[in-house]
C-alpha cells in the first residue's frame, strides 16, 4: 500500500502530470486503498514535498502553480468517487486583501496551495473593508483569518482589522495570519497577528499547525 501512495506522492512532487497520477490512483483503488488515504498520504503528501522543494530553492513560482493545477485536475477526477468516502477537510480559512490594496496574485497562490492541502477557503477578494472581515469571521467561524497586503501604505489596515476582532470579542477564536510583500515577522508581532508568512508555502504550513488537534 505504501509503495503506490509513495509513487503518487513523488509523481506529483516531480510534476509528473495529471494523466500519470490518475493512472496511479486507479491502480491504488484496485488495491482497495481508500480515497481518503490516496488524498492524504498520496496527493497532500506530494504537495508538501513540492512546498519543501520551493523552500529549498529547487522550485519556483511556476512549479508551485503547476503542481497546484495538477492537483486540481486530479481532484476533479476523484470528486465523483467522494460520495461514499468523504474526505475530512483540514480546516477553514477566511481570506482577503486588506482595504486600499487591489493586489491578488500572492493571495490567489496561497489559496491554491491551501485548497490543495485540504482547507476550505472563503475568499473575500481584494480591497476588503475591515468590518466585512469581522462580519464574515463571525458567520463562518474560520480557524484562520488570512490578511494579504502588498502595499506598505495599506499595512495599517491589518491592525485595524485585528483591533476590530478584539473589540468584537472574537480575536481569541481564530488565528490571524498575515502575508504579502509588505509584511514582515516584526510587523506581525507589532500588530498582534499570530504569524507572518513570507510565502505561500510558509502560510500553508502555519495553517496546518494551527488546526492540529
Amino acid at each position, binding site marked *: 500500500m505504501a509503495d503506490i501512495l509513495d509513487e503518487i506522492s513523488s509523481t506529483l512532487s516531480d510534476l509528473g502530470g495529471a494523466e500519470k497520477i490518475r493512472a496511479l490512483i486507479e491502480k491504488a483503488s484496485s488495491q482497495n486503498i481508500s480515497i481518503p488515504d490516496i488524498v492524504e498520504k498520496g496527493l497532500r503528501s506530494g504537495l508538501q514535498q513540492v512546498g519543501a522543494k520551493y523552500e529549498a*530553492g529547487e522550485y519556483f513560482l*511556476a*512549479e508551485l502553480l503547476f503542481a497546484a493545477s495538477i492537483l486540481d485536475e486530479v481532484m476533479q477526477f476523484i470528486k465523483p468517487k467522494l460520495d461514499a468516502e468523504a474526505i475530512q477537510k483540514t480546516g477553514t480559512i477566511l481570506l482577503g486583501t486588506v482595504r*486600499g490594496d*487591489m493586489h491578488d496574485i500572492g493571495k*490567489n497562490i496561497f489559496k491554491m496551495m491551501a485548497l490543495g492541502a485540504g482547507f476550505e477557503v472563503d475568499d473575500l477578494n481584494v480591497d476588503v473593508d475591515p468590518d466585512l472581515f469581522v462580519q464574515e469571521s463571525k458567520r463562518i467561524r474560520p480557524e484562520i483569518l488570512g490578511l494579504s497586503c502588498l502595499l506598505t501604505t495599506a499595512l495599517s489596515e491589518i491592525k485595524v482589522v485585528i483591533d476590530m476582532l478584539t473589540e468584537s470579542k472574537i480575536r481569541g477564536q481564530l488565528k490571524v495570519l498575515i502575508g504579502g*510583500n509588505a509584511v514582515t515577522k516584526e510587523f506581525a508581532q507589532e500588530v498582534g497577528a499570530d504569524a507572518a508568512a513570507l510565502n505561500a508555502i510558509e502560510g500553508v504550513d502555519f495553517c496546518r499547525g494551527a488546526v492540529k488537534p
Partner: protein
Amino acid sequence: MTPRERFRKAMNFEPVDAIPWAENFYVETVNRFFAEGLPAHEINVMDWKMEGYLLLNWPAFLGFDANSYFGCINFFGCMVPVDVGPIPRFKQRKIGEDSRYEEYVMESGARSRIPKKGARQTTWYAMPQFYSFPVSDKSSWERYKERLNPEDPRRYGKDWDPDAYSQVLDQYQGGPTCLSMTGFYGFGAELMGIPNFNLAFYKDPELIQDMISHWEYFTIESTREAVETLRDRIDMIFWWEDMAERHGPNISPKLYREFLLPHYKRVTAFLNKNKIHRIMMDSDGNTRPILDLVIEAGITGHWPLEVNSGMDAPALRKQYGKKLFLVGNLDKREIAKGGEAMRKEIDSKLPVMKEASGYIAGLDHLVHVEFTFQRFKEYADYLKTKLPVE
C-alpha cells in the same frame, strides 16, 4: 561632468566626480508632494506643440519634472521614440462601474478595475486590479500577434528622422538617453497575467516557444532603425522584466535557460553589434538564483535591488564585480522613516559602493506615496552630501 556623462561613466565603471542619483516617482506621490509644498509652477514642463487639428504651434503643459526639483535623474527623461506596444492600441474605455469601482479596458487589452476617485485618500491609478488578459491560448495569441507587427510605420513618431533626433539627443545632458525594451517575462506576464503565463511554460510550451520567437523578432525589428542609426548615442537599454518575488524568481533557472536564454542572447548580440552594451534589467524581488544566467544573456545592469527581498548591492558587487552595474538598493522603508534610520541606511551602502564606480544611487523601488514631501527632501539633502567622490 554633465549628468549624462556621469551616468555613462558610472555604468562603464569609469571614475566619476560624484555617484549619479536616479529616482522615479509614482504620480500619486507627486500629487501628494504638491499638497505638501512642492511648487508645481517651478517644475511643470511646457513646450510648443502642434496638436494637428490646427496648423499652429501652441504652448502646452506636458507634465511635471519632480526630478529636477530634487536634483536626481529620471531614467525616462530622454527616451528614443519607438512604440513597442500593440498597434493599433485597444481603445481605453470605461466598461462598467458600481458604487465603489470603475472597470476599464486598458490599452494593452487587459481589463482592470480601480477604486473610484474620492473613494480613498489615495487613488491607485498605478495599481489597478487586472482581472482578465488578452492572451489565453494559441488562437488569442495569433490574434494579438497581428498588433505586434514590427514593420508598422506607426512605431516611429511622425517626426522621426535619425539625424534630427541625434542632434536633439545630443542637446540632452540631464541624464541617459534610453531605449526601452520589454523582456520576455514582462511581455508574457502582461499579455497573459502572471499565473497563466507561468503555467503555460509547463502546460503549453509550444505556445511559449511561439511567443518568444515572435518576441525576439519583434524586439529586434521594431527597434532596428533606431539602434542601427543612433548606435551608442543610446546610453542604456531599459529592459523591463519584473520577474521575481521575495522568495525568488517566478521562473526557475532551468526554464530561464531553456526558453529565454537563447533568444535573449540574440537580442543583446544585436545591441552589442551596434555598440550598445549597457542593458539594465528592471525587476523587483529576489533575482539572485538567476543572476548568472541574466549576465550570460547579456544584461549588464540591474535595478532596483529590493532590500525586502534580500538584495544587497555590496554583496552583489563582491560576487559579480564589473559584470553588473547596480542601481538603487536604498531601502525605501528605512529611508521613509527619515532621521537616523535614513542616514544609517545611506551610510551603510554609499561608501562601499563608491569604491569601484558602477553604481547609481536611489531607492529600491519607485518613490511611494508614503513619503512625505519633507521626508523626501530630507533624504535628498542628506544623500547629495554623500555623492561626491574625492
